[in-house]
């Protein structure tokens, strides 16, 4: 995939620096590790203020969260509220926590902007709880804010590709 901001395969220019696919992969792998280990405070620091967390519905056809129903459309305050909730033992749906195991692959750097980078990646998340096993399959469509020394989420969107949420497959955890 080549766009005007692609420097060479797997390298995109954003503002005055280059971002490599390896850097994005490291960011996504680190995030997956934080989520699988339920280190939610650290995970929350991966968002810039004004960051968003979105999960469209399975019938989604690219509608944005201002014109269509979503599973999750959190602004920054709601992400914070979600983290606080999930850390509480009164978040009954996640007490005890689900065991999750994430695979992230097929990372593609789509296009750079003045300070942001659009990326996509595939995910498979296995979730285990109460004797049930659930598989969530989809792709990430993120807008990353590129800082001089790190990446952060401006929009973190997980797009499920399943036809619906299977019996028991709720989204009480972070997809």
């Amino acid at each position, binding site marked *: 995939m080549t766009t005007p901001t692609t420097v060479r395969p797997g390298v995109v220019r954003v503002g005055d620096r280059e971002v490599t696919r390896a850097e994005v992969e490291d960011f996504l792998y680190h995030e997956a590790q934080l989520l699988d280990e339920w280190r939610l405070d650290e995970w929350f620091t991966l968002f810039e203020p004004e960051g968003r967390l979105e999960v469209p519905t399975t019938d989604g056809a690219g509608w944005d969260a201002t014109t269509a*129903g*979503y599973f999750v*459309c959190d602004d920054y305050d709601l992400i914070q509220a979600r983290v606080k909730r999930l850390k509480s033992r009164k978040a009954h749906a996640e007490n005890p926590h689900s065991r999750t195991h994430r695979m992230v692959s097929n990372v593609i750097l789509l296009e750079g902007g003045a300070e942001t980078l659009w990326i996509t990646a595939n995910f498979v998340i296995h979730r285990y709880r109460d004797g*049930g096993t659930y598989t969530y399959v989809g792709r990430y469509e993120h807008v990353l804010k590129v800082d001089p020394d790190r990446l952060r989420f401006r929009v973190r969107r997980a797009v499920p590709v399943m036809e*619906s949420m299977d019996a028991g497959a*709720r*989204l*009480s955890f972070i997809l």
Partner: protein
Amino acid sequence: MQQTPVRPLGAPGGGALIDEDWEALRFRVHRSAYREPELFQQEIDRIWNHTWLYLGHETELPRPGDFKTRTLGGRPLIFCRDSDGEVRAFFNSCTHRGTVLCRHSEGNTKFFQCFYHAWAFSNSGELAALPGDDAYPDDPGFRASMALRQVPRLQIHEGFVFVAFDPDVPDLLTHLGAAAHYMSLTAKIGPHGLTTLPGVQLYSVKGNWKLAVENAMDGYHFAPTHNTFVGYLRETGFAVTDDDQYAYDLGGGHGLLVLTGHNGRIGMVWEPRFGDEEKARTTAKRQEMESRLGTELAGEIADASRILFVFPNLLLFDLEALTIRQLEPVAADRTDVRAWQFVEVGEPESVRALRIKTMVSFVGPGGLATPDDIEAYEAVQRGIVATANPADPAHDWSDMSRGMANEKQGNQGRSIDEGAMRSFWRHWASVVGVPTSVAGAPPTVPSATGPSRPKGE
């Protein structure tokens, strides 16, 4: 209170499934009602095959030719608007050999063509193409007999489309009874009407469908189950209260909770998380509603939130914002759920965005509250296996007696009591045809009209 002797059990023993005792102030449901596959099949036969069912909203089909496919009571259907603009429901099965005719979940078409032998039907059901028709009787009656099968009954109230598989059900408005009024209240919120949005939450829970009904009619669970959501609201500056809020038996199994202390209402009752811009708009919208509807009706619509259950498969949540939820029973221990955002036609973009964000933060499998409800249905479904024991029948009951003493005194049941669940179960038992046991004198039930009539008279 002494434990009274237990009457013979319901399934499989043939005794009462509902045990109601107005001397002991006890109402309980035998747990086989959530568990037994035979009883589930009886529900499909007696309820889903013989009662009006919510199919969808006509705004899901804005243009002629629009269609959705949807399973209702286990039957695959095509829900469509024909080329003349009429809303229709067909069985999604080719009249030739029974193949599922339309395999897409939604779209727009003039014709539905079966891939198997290429028979095609117009979107009003006529057989439009019969390949190799020289080998069939040269008789218009034959073609007519092969028209796509329509669901026997279809009626619409305020845009809510209901169907029945039994041609002899009474009219929809008779079925809806007092519930029709509350659907009309919600429908009047917007000066240009209301519409469903695309982006449907499709999910499934490992629980009996009646647990989802109970949960919606149960204000008692709100504070403990949604502790974290109540905490979130408190931090935004809104204090949840359960005081002075009531539950209503609307007859026919329909139920209503009227809530004033659980949330604001976008455009109608402001709360801090809606923001300052919305505060000014709320004042203006109230004036618009009063001039359009009169002060009294505007107040009835705007001042309180409502959770309406229309027996057996529709829940209308008129809360911070609006959600339509449809329950589709799949098995005794599994229910598919579909939920639509329901919004005002023509509202400003910023309000639409606020509405979606706010509603989704509460309801649905990814919200901050519904996952805990789902946890409750599923934990009940797992838990009630424990007491299934013919050798010890005394402990296989779920209790729903909260508030009976208050009700016996002739008072309106509170939202945090279990009266709306009791009226649902009584109606359920009468329709499904399971035995019940009633001891003592039930209180005189006020006419089932909900809160707009004088209470206790």
